[in-house]
């Protein structure tokens, strides 16, 4: 068995899988067909609904991949041939020649500057050009240049420009690499469907009709217009239209729903309004599928806060009329055909899978990987797993979960070979600089135009040189690039720097990266100081460049003052208990428990109810329909019971939780106390008991769950008329979120009735049909085919139930219908469990506005809590389907393994400490600590406060609270802060 893994596809799903596996202890070969990793996410301007700068949150991961000693990247490479089986695959990879020698190329770009050829840049969705020798984007990893031989005119000006570095070699051949790996992860993402085949939309004929991805580049600061929204002729548009389902949900093109386009279009419209508040944005949609966490709220913001016009209609045509684009559509509110003249149109074209044929795995008729054994990431070949969009359309958050999920599975498969092929991370010996006179290096980053476009960086450069202790100053377009980091490294060595300042974006995303560079150069990472010029200066003073430059000088001067006083810090080492407590014995909890046990970790599964199985045990059927929920639950319970590494507790609750990552103590209601290194929250949710539509007083009104039970137990009779009402308690004032699963559930149950009693009339009253998950759009169509009626109501004109009569105003026919109903079925909201609150308090983790648990980061850390060592999966995080729940549950397995596979962990180095002699024992610090890290103890006969160094996160709240100055924060000492304040005030004298 091999201890190595091949990951195909360097997008976010592939990167996440690679990082998790490499951290757990596997050698990873990451193959990417393009010259740089990063995938589609790198092309996006911002993410939805979080509005994070996409590149800013992804680039640190890309650099982490590049730097990880256990990851070997094979970029500009393709998998040609795979044979073998689980544990022992032989893979042939074709590494296409870049004609540039990796070790000699510094990424300086001198060659590209001299290249006379302009080629449309694929990274910019062809909206901007690159050269025939190029890196696709400044943050590219690796930043080795590539010669595009197809467009190269062999003038060899690049060779001349490269000069003595001699990095360009036109005789370099393609190379075939033979890999021997234990498992394979397919994360090959997607391509865009060509919208020019829809002739009526004029893409490729008329000007200013763009795809969503092209518009993403237009919005981006590094795009063709540097973030200015401009038409092809350079003039300013005043009105932009967004059109959904271009080639998706279309029987003549792609039948499936591409799943994330609705909300990305909302995002693009919001960003447009942020760029230019006076721009008019109109968004045409069929059903607004804002189904993910936070997305419905985001859609509402788009409507109410940003004034985006949402039009429920699919336009029939787009024609160029003069310099305008004329859209012809039916205004379904007014009921008449209108034309709208706009300046620009953005088409949400369908996405199509791009699973390489060289992988002999089963794909469905649409080309997505066919999942097997009721698991989304399992393929028909043992040892080959699928992540991200390769299996079905999904957004970043779900792709990240699935990336980790595949890592968890592979980690279990190859458990016996764990650690056999890894390289120990080599940390160069740390140079002791204590006592040395400060020698500060200042690195100034333009961040493209983010900072450089506002702040006069030349002035900052000159100014920095004048500051005390500064011995070196350098300016970069992107300091975070590989080249930028290399320059920091070189400067530390050459100029004997003992303090490093990067004046750039924000420490939030980039501090770890630069600290690591310092470590590689032999400097203690805490001798690094971040000056935030982007988020604290250029972004907020975008329209005052003069003042911004002045403030940037202040910020740099303050950082220099503090840097001189920085001291070396050392993290602590804590032991790790390789056990995990999983709270919640539903499908997510059991999946995590089984995965953790397969990875060799002792697992405790805690269930409050008398039986394991949770919500899913109550389901009679589900989406995907080929799976039987009862059977799955039964099999999982059996597997849990038989696994010697899992101890399941039923009728057991959590009494108390103390401790910290690696060392938790969980007290149970039965009196037992469990030791664990990690805790998983998989407490699920439940169906809301409605107080609407006569529920409770009318015996014929029931919820979907109750209806399933009634149907299965034969209580629904032939000839009965069934009316289902969607969004009951969801998408309203009290619960603004979408419950995500109900549309699929309703359609599935409707089909179930039709299967049993084809003649029974079934009506589904909906607002937006959100059948987004794989196979559910097809179910929706099947339901229509089988004669289920779908009537659309407006959210402000909800149906009324009176006895056996349901009255609904159909918004298309503009007609009120009375429907006689024998059963009224309510698709009630999914709500969090009522004791989530209590558990959140015990764990000291936050809940979101809707009462679900709040993850560390919706996009990139969906299954982690901000608190280390605690994880969450399934409906506890937000309403979701079976596949997405088990995907998260499996993802946790990898996240846990990263912690538990190591015997010990490093703790935070920047913590608080109490000076015993100054402490007066007032204990004011104890209640203010959000991490309960402080206790009062008697030491040397004095009652003093003691900080648990493993629990302390270094937030500094206690320091502010302490009346005597006894409490000190490492790395943020009073002296350091005062030095900054002093110099700030000097500047204003």
């Amino acid at each position, binding site marked *: 068995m091999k201890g190595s893994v091949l990951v195909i596809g360097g997008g976010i799903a592939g990167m996440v899988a690679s990082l998790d596996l490499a951290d757990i202890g596997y050698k990873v070969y990451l193959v990417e067909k393009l010259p740089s990793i990063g995938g589609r996410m790198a092309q996006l301007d911002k993410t939805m609904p979080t509005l994070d700068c996409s590149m800013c949150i992804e680039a640190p991961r890309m650099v982490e991949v590049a730097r990880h000693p256990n990851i070997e990247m094979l970029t500009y490479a393709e998998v040609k041939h795979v044979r073998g089986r689980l544990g022992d695959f032989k893979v042939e990879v074709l590494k296409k020649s870049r004609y540039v020698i990796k070790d000699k190329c510094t990424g300086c770009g001198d060659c590209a500057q001299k290249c006379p050829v302009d080629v449309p840049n694929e990274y910019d969705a062809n909206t901007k050009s690159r050269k025939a020798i190029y890196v696709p984007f400044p943050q590219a990893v690796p930043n080795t240049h590539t010669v595009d031989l197809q467009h190269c005119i062999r003038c060899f000006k690049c060779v001349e420009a490269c000069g003595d570095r001699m990095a360009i070699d036109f005789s370099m051949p393609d190379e075939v690499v033979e890999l021997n790996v234990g498992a394979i992860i397919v994360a090959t993402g997607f391509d865009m469907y060509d919208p020019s085949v829809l002739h*009526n939309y004029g893409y490729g004929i008329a000007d200013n009709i763009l795809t969503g991805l092209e518009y993403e580049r237009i919005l981006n600061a590094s795009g063709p217009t540097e973030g200015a929204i401009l038409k092809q002729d350079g003039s300013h548009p005043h009105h932009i239209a967004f059109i959904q389902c271009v080639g998706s949900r279309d029987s003549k093109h792609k039948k499936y729903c591409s799943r994330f386009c609705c909300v990305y279009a909302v995002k693009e419209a919001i960003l447009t309004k942020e760029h230019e508040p006076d721009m008019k944005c109109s968004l045409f949609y069929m*059903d607004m599928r804002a189904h993910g966490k936070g997305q419905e709220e985001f859609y509402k913001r788009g409507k109410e806060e940003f004034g985006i016009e949402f039009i429920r209609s*699919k336009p029939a045509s787009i024609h160029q009329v003069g310099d305008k684009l004329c859209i*012809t559509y039916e205004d379904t509110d007014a009921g008449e055909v209108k034309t709208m003249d706009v300046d620009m149109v953005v088409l949400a074209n369908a996405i199509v899978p791009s699973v390489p044929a060289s992988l002999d795995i089963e794909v469905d008729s649409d080309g997505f990987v066919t999942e097997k054994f009721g698991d989304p990431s399992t393929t028909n070949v043992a040892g080959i797993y699928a992540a991200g969009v390769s299996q079905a359309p999904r957004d970043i958050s779900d792709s990240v979960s699935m990336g980790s999920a595949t890592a968890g599975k592979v980690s279990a498969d190859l458990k016996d070979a764990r650690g056999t092929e890894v390289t120990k991370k080599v940390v160069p010996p740390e140079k002791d600089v204590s006592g040395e006179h400060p020698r500060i290096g200042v690195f100034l980053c333009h961040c493209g135009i983010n900072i450089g476009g506002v702040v006069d960086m030349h002035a900052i450069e000159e100014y920095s040189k004048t500051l005390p202790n500064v011995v070196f100053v350098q300016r970069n377009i992107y300091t975070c690039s590989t080249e930028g980091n290399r320059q920091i490294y070189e400067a530390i060595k050459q100029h004997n720097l003992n303090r490093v300042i990067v004046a750039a974006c924000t420490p939030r995303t980039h501090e770890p990266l630069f600290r690591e560079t310092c470590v590689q150069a032999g400097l203690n990472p805490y001798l690094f100081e971040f000056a935030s010029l982007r988020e604290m200066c250029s972004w907020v003073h975008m329209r005052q460049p003069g003042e911004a430059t002045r403030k940037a000088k202040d910020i740099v001067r303050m950082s220099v003052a503090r840097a001189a006083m920085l001291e070396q810090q050392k993290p602590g080492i804590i032991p790790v208990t390789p056990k995990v407590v999983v709270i919640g014995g539903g499908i997510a909890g059991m999946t995590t428990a089984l995965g953790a046990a397969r990875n060799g970790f002792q697992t405790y599964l805690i269930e409050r109810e008398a039986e394991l199985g949770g919500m899913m045990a109550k389901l009679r059927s589900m989406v995907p329909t080929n799976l039987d929920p009862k059977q799955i639950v039964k099999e999982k319970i059996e597997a849990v019971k038989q696994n010697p590494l899992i101890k399941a507790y039923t009728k057991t609750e959590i009494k108390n939780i103390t401790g910290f990552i690696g060392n938790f103590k969980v007290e149970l209601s039965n009196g037992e106390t469990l030791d664990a290194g990690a805790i998983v929250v998989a407490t699920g949710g439940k169906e809301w008991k409605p107080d609407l539509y006569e529920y409770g007083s009318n015996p014929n009104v029931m919820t979907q769950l109750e209806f399933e039970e009634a149907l299965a137990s034969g209580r629904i009779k032939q000839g009965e008329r069934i009316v289902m009402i969607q969004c009951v308690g969801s998408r309203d004032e009290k619960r603004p979120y979408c419950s995500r699963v109900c549309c699929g559930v309703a359609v599935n149950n409707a089909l179930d009735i039709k299967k049993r009693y084809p003649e029974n009339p079934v009506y589904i009253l909906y607002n937006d049909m959100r059948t987004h998950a794989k196979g559910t759009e097809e179910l929706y*169509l099947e339901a*229509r085919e089988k004669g289920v009626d779908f009537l659309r109501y407006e959210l402000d004109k909800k149906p009324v139930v009176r006895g056996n009569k349901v009255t609904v105003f159909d918004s*298309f026919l503009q*007609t009120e219908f009375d429907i006689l109903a024998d059963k009224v079925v309510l698709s009630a909201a999914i709500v969090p469990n009522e004791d989530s609150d209590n558990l959140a308090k015990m764990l000291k983790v936050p809940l979101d506005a809707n009462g679900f648990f709040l993850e560390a980061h919706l996009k990139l850390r969906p299954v982690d809590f901000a608190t280390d060592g605690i994880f969450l999966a399934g409906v506890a995080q937000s309403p979701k389907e079976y596949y997405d729940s088990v995907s998260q549950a499996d993802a946790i397995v990898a996240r846990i393994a990263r912690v538990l596979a190591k015997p010990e962990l490093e703790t935070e180095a920047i913590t608080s400490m109490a000076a015993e002699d100054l402490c007066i024992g007032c204990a004011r610090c104890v209640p203010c600590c959000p991490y309960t890290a402080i206790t009062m103890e008697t030491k040397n006969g004095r009652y003093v406060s003691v900080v648990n160094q493993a629990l302390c996160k270094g937030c500094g709240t206690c320091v502010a609270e302490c009346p005597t100055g006894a409490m000190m924060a490492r790395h943020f000492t009073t002296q350091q802060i005062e030095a900054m304040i002093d110099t700030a005030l000097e500047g204003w004298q």
Partner: protein
Amino acid sequence: MISKEFIQKISAIPGADQARMCYKCAECTAVCPVAKETNYEFKPHVVMGMINYGLKEQVLPYLWYCITCGQCTVLCPQGINIQEAVRGARTQTTETPYAHKGIFHSMHRIMARQTPDRTKWFQEAGVDLNKKGDKLFFVSCIPLYEMFFMDLNFDAKEMVKSSVKILDKLGINYQIFADELCCGHDVFWAGDYETFKQFAEKNAKVFKERGIKEIITFCPECYRTFLLDYPRVIKGFDIKVRHITDLIAEGMNSGKIEIARAAEVLTYQDPCRLGRHCGIYEAPRAILEKLGKFVEMKHTREKAGCCGISAWLSCEPETKVYREQRIKEAREAGAQTLVTSCPHCLIHFSCSICEDQKIPVQHNIKVKDIVTLVGRQMK
């Protein structure tokens, strides 16, 4: 009140039950020429909704608003054949708005019971009825129409003669039936499914008995009906169907047919049945390129406007608008002659022009049939 009775009744008619697939994207309304002319009183998706919900009384008048041109069907992302859904629903009404006082439908119904004899007509036309072959030249009902539209210079005999000349030139072995029956198109689209079925069954039987393997016709309505509707009604109907323009285009490619180009500026009216219903756009254009100087109108191919009438229904001032628009487009394109490959388009456009000559507005355009032109210009 929603009722499924209506849609259940019509779901036996091919294509009629598709109304339930409509998810109301409303793309159809914006291309529908009828919606526009009725000030959006008529909307295809609303008609689909009404059919689906069984709003029989409300939907009946709208069923006859539809000119079954199929522009909506081209766009429908759900792939609903909207005109066929309408056609199916028409079987549930008797208030058919017949044109020409229903004479053609009456004659068709008579024909369904009593086989006609066209021997004399063919003799007058100089057509040899003794030819043998496993292919059938299906003449269609134009001999019948000739009687009614002589004043429009509608010359069915020349059309048939030209066709025969073309088929002979191509060396095709074909039969012509003197006792040819109607294909059933008109009664079918007028909602008379029973008569249509009689035609289909009778025709299929005769074709089989006489060993027909392939049907050749110049009438797009016959072409559509044999190609699309017969296989759905007659089990095992597998006779190949060819439109004569396809054969002419092939003959031009192989050199069997040579055409003397005229100086005339020509444009082409895509018949709904041949174009949108069956996807034949290229062959007629290839022929027109050879016949004269070919120009396209603003709306062509799948976006081409309809003449406004099919199956001899709803010849009203409202539908005349479509012909007027089309003639205007043809003139704007600079055409001297509007060429069509459909005898019905030919009659309807000829009528429009003649009427206006009476009033007297000079349209300054001629309307011609493609087969006639080929017959005249073939070397």
